[in-house]
């Protein structure tokens, strides 16, 4: 689910506006629909699905260096396709667009260090391979090598080189990987997660490199029609529970701020999966933080009850607002959080809050 926030609006504008551009060349792209009955195959489905409009690979996690202080990180690659197909024979023709975001959440800094990239898939300078995970923009990349993923991000203010090793099989979200986002069946995505990835590598900042290790969570999601028209934004969590379990929960908010859809799943360390019905998930804000930069008021602390489980969510620090206006036009909150039960930490993961700055424009 994560990453929906950053859906490249560079194309969304075009989609919304189809009616008034009939004079323009190019036919409507026949995007593949998300329909029940699809069986995910691995590693095939870890690769790109170019027939779908939107796709992302989203890695979040907690790292610690030699000193032991916790740092959150986020690496995301988006692949998007314009709403209109072009007959343009130019090599530059924007058949696919790639966008990448990366951020480091270090409590010592008190705010995110982040960078972003965007490029069209052309000249092999940027692209997304089919059949296996391999997405890249220039020297930023996320590649699958057997059971492992290698992520390389050369941001302006930091460089992150990570090897992520699977310790658990993929966790298919929703109904065997079909995750609905609203009451209408077409607003849905194919969605799997790989929780409890073992992360190790190096983080370079200010010219010094430190060895880091930790635990990460990968989301891979693709769809052609995502948001219900009522949706203003959503709240999402993905938590690696300390006991080896994994919890994902989200809810979609309407303009009044109320949930009109929700979902999620819990998988125990043993592998038993509990999928939550929309009414089984409840998000209750506990505390807000207001961004002085954008004025957005984010509920950064939560009580989430899902399928009878109840945990509290507490951020690593408050200011994990992510401004990606340059590539996606969106400002949202994407941050490292702890999961607490009765005040005791039971897991670590990421919280995503969208639509608090402005209605998320897709």
């Amino acid at each position, binding site marked *: 689910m994560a990453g929906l926030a950053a859906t490249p*609006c*560079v194309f969304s504008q*075009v989609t919304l506006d189809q009616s008034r551009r009939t004079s323009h*060349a190019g036919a409507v792209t026949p995007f593949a629909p998300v329909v029940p009955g699809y069986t995910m195959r691995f590693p095939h489905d870890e690769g790109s699905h170019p027939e779908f409009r939107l796709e992302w690979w989203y890695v979040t996690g907690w790292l610690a260096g030699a000193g032991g202080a916790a740092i959150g990180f986020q690496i995301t690659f988006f692949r998007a396709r314009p709403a209109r197909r072009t007959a343009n024979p130019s090599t*530059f023709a924007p058949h696919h667009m790639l966008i990448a975001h990366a951020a480091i959440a270090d409590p010592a800094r008190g705010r995110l260090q982040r960078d972003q990239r965007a490029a069209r898939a052309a000249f092999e*300078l940027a692209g997304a391979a089919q059949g296996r995970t391999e997405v890249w923009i*220039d020297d930023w990349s996320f590649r699958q090598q057997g059971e492992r993923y290698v992520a390389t991000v050369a941001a302006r203010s930091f460089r992150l080189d990570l090897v992520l090793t699977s310790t658990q099989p993929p966790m298919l979200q929703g109904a065997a990987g079909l995750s609905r986002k609203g009451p209408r069946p077409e607003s849905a995505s194919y969605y799997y997660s790989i929780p409890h990835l073992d992360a190790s590598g190096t983080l370079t900042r200010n010219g010094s490199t430190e060895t880091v290790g930790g635990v990460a969570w990968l989301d891979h999601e693709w769809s052609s029609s995502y948001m219900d028209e009522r949706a203003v934004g959503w709240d999402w969590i993905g938590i690696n529970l300390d006991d080896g379990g994994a919890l994902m929960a989200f809810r979609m908010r309407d303009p009044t701020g109320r949930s009109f859809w929700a979902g999620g799943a819990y998988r125990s360390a043993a592998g038993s999966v509990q999928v939550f019905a929309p009414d089984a998930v409840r998000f209750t804000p506990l505390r807000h933080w207001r961004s002085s930069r954008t004025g957005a008021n984010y509920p950064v602390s939560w009580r989430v009850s899902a399928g009878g489980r109840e945990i509290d969510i507490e951020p690593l620090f408050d200011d994990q607002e992510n401004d990606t206006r340059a590539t996606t036009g969106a400002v949202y909150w994407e941050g490292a959080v702890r999961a607490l039960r009765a005040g005791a930490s039971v897991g670590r993961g990421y919280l995503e809050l969208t639509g608090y700055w402005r209605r998320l424009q897709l």
Partner: protein
Amino acid sequence: MASARLAPHASALTASGTRFLPFRALVSGPLREHPGHALLALAAIALGVALGVAVHLINSSALNEFNLAAHHLAGEADLVVRGPRAGFDETLYPRIARLPQVEAANPAVELEVPILGKEGTLRIIGFDPLRTAQVQPSLLPERTAEVAELFAADSILLSPSAARWLGLDMGAALRMMVGTGVVEVKVVGMLPEGGYRQRVGVMDIATAQWRLGRLGKLSRIDLRLKPGVVVTAFQRELQNELPPGVYVATPETDAERGASLSRAYRLNLDMLALIALFTGAFLVFSSQMLALMRRRAQFALLRALGVTRRSLANWLLAEAAVVGAIGAILGLALGYAVARFAIANFGTDLGAGYFRGIVPGIHVDPVALIAYFALGVLFAVLGAAAPALEAARRAPAKALHAGDEEEGLRGVRTTWPGIASCAIGALLAFAPAVDGLPVAAYCAIALILSGVILLLPQFVSGVLKRVSAPRSVPAALALAQLQATPRQIAVSAAAIVASFSLMVAMLIMVHSFRSSLETWLEHMLPADLYLRALRGGETGFLTPEEQNRLQSTPGVERIEFLRSQNLLLASDRPPVVLLAGPADSAAMLLAIGPTVIPRAGEPPAVWVSEVAADLYGWRTGQRVQLPIGASSREYTVAGIWRDYVRQSGAIAIDRQLYVNLTGDALANDAAIWIAPGAALPDVERALRERLGNAQGIEIASTREVRANSLALFDRTFAVTYALEIAAVLIGLFGISVSFGAQALARRREFGMLRHIGMSRRGIGAMLGWEGAIVSIFGAAVGLALGWITGLILIHVVNRQSFHWSMDLHVPWLPLAALAAVLAAASIVTAVWSGRAAMSDDVIRAVREDW
């Protein structure tokens, strides 16, 4: 205190009141009494400063705009890779982008595109907005949504100035002419106000490549390097990797290359303005000198009363400085106003076409304004210095006598400095260009002009001595007056000599240029009709299929196609035009000097324009390496031809060879010879029909092409004419000032003549004669000097600035007419200046006794 004696009621005055008495006596008194004199000096300085400031402002605004525009284009780029108009292969882009030293690479397609129903072209830049965001973020609209719009097919963003020029708003359709047809795109947004200053349309690179017929090609790649990469070292390294004809340069060099085209033109304008200021200085000098001379008796009295030499001189210089300062301030204001007006109405290149598409905005450089202000004050003080010092030095008793004015000038020894100045000037005329600019030649012109003016008194008295007294009393009196005062005449005539010689020189130069251009056009346009796919733009072309259709048009006897591309031969020079034409094109080019036809086995022939030969040091018979087509190879320079159009040089080549080398079989132009008996309009109609009456086709007869070319030429030189007229007006103004001053000084003389029975008309005739004689000297010397200056302009200045040779054509008749007009004008001026002398007031002047 000496001044106390001046005031009979000194006791009634305060100390501070008496301190300024000399000032009152010398400066404010006369100023109040004869405000006209001060006003004339004021106006002279104001006019000179205004002219200089106006030209400077216009030039510096143009350059500033140009630099700003270039700077904005370059953004944060460290290096710019640029190819010829035909572009370079796009696969260079990933190769460069992957280099480890490169942080970001932004590829672009750049074209001048004609717009349907619009005179002139719009520069279209096709870039990848996502890459632009990395290298030049300021070029992008602030709203991401507008960037997003770009990805939709056939979308364009316009710079604010382009939108204004086109009169288009969001959502409107822009019709661009490509090939022989029209491509319609939609204006989906506006570029930020602070981004592109030029008239620019921005498209997605993919759309631009496709819609403008540039698939697979790029015009430029802007690079941002990783921190720590040494730019110069990497630039050298990268240059070695680039295909022939593609160069990597720093953004500064890239911008300079653009500005270098107009450099000589700008220098020429600046020089004209300086010459005008120089002429103005003569006017200041003569008006100050004569005004002070008129007051010599008063000064003598003051000296007699005990005012010291030093304080007299100081007060006079202070007076000049005050007049100069006021004049200079007026001049700054006037110059600013003129510049604003000119920029708003004619653009910063004053219609010469160097800064096409740049939005004019006036750029004021305070240092330059202060310099011009100082120059104005300096000229005023210098103009007053000689007479002021002389007035102070003069023994008071002698100066009290009438007729002493010439004495004041007698001390000025001018012969040797004049000869020296002329000699040095003559030597400098043969000096080579400095940094591509004819600086030495301009110095030569200034020195010769100064020298001639210094020799003027000698010359005038030498000539007048040989003239015997005419019968007519007014004429005889005029002659006697002038014979006795050669130095005063020299002062009066100096301004006219300076301005008229400038005008003559420019006329000779422009006329020679125009005549040579006419001859050249005749030679270059041998066919009957000329067909062009899209005038001015870079997107027009005729496909081979269209060429075949044209070939078989009834009424066409012969048709030759021309392909115009360009080549980059150096990173710091603008591209050289490559003209691929008929095999016998050599016959159509106006060759100068010998030609060498390469034998079989020798490198193929190219004909290079004079400009190219000068810029790159090529000689006939030389073998040169040229990047035509995919690889660079050797060619033989078969000959050098004269070309007045392509300022950065041109190379002509056999089109068949060009097609073989490049595979580019498109054509831009066609020269058409019609069959005997066929009617021009019929053939023209048939040709149009052959191309489906496409809108992008322009057909003109040889006569029309010639007329258009000459009209363009005239427009370019319009500003020069304006400056010349200004200079001559200043010259006439100078005559008026000096005659006015002299007439006032001679009021008692006129009064006496009226008493003894000379009529008003007689006095008018006498003044007219004086004016005529002075202006004949001015015109004759100006004509001779102008002829010399014209030679320097033609053979040195033009050659060094523009690398154009031309044949000397002196427009004798217009020059004679001009000299006549000038003489008439100065006679009228002289009589008009002396009209006070013909009033009844002069009758009373005989009773004035000093």
